[in-house]
């Protein structure tokens, strides 16, 4: 995993990192650098659905994409190779997410030495109409 983080910093390629994390493989969550920033993607799959009747994604899967995108961005930017530890995350659900790919971007509200405050946005067709947003705090040093 540490090798994958070193490779990410050197090349901007998330492949080794996302392959090293079983859960992101299970979820179909990937990341790449687009326009100099981390873009997280959760590929649509039937097993992500929460409401089978309305064909809407499970709220937990959106939380997972938001948290993963924040962690990917912290790993890409960070100064240590340790995995940031989630202190807390608040997810706001803004509208139902359809059965299609979901994208996400993260912004650092404050990136300190110990703690990072991150705001994350997830959308489907239109970035101006987010399906969910999150505010999260991460611990960047060992507890």
């Amino acid at each position: 995993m540490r090798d994958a983080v070193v490779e990410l910093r050197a090349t901007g390629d998330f492949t080794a990192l996302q392959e090293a994390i079983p859960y992101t493989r299970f979820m179909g969550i990937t990341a790449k650098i687009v326009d100099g920033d981390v873009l997280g993607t959760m590929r649509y799959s039937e097993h992500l659905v929460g409401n089978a009747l309305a064909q809407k994604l499970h709220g937990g899967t959106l939380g997972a994409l938001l948290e993963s995108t924040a962690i990917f961005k912290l790993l890409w930017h960070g100064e240590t190779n340790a995995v940031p530890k989630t202190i807390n995350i608040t997810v706001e659900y803004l509208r139902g997410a359809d059965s299609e790919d979901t994208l996400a971007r993260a912004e650092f509200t404050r990136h300190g030495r110990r703690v990072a405050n991150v705001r994350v946005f997830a959308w489907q067709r239109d970035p101006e109409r987010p399906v969910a947003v999150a505010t999260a705090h991460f611990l960047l040093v060992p507890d």
Partner: protein
Amino acid sequence: MSDSFLPQKDEIKRRLEGRYVGAVPHNRALDLRVVDYRPEHLSLCLPYRDDLVGNPETGVLHGGCITSLIDATCGGAVIMSLTAPRRIATLDLRIDYVRPALPGQEVICDAHCYKITRHVAFVRAIAHHGDDVSPIASASGTFVVFRETEKGES
């Protein structure tokens, strides 16, 4: 608890499992199980699985699947509080990770819908490894409760 009550409780558990897990593809993919239930309360269990690990160095489950477990359990606790069938949707969910999860161990979420109004339900939950005085995570969520005549956006 009398012996004759136990089969009945198991039967209800099976029905709830059908409703909260069987009918929800992502809950089924996580293999969630009903641990316990009573009015306003629901407990679900997320079995440990290697493919849900977030950090391969420690073997600890990813926060994402714990978020799904907590969201599913909180939503179920709201449904356990309803007097008539209603559609609900999560408004927000806050999760504090108070201590690291342990590798190889299932995670149980206990959720309590402590207040429900005409349109909104409030839920508190904790996630733990079987000892609820030593939680992994503490959570609170709010849900919108749709009236029968309403549909679509909250």
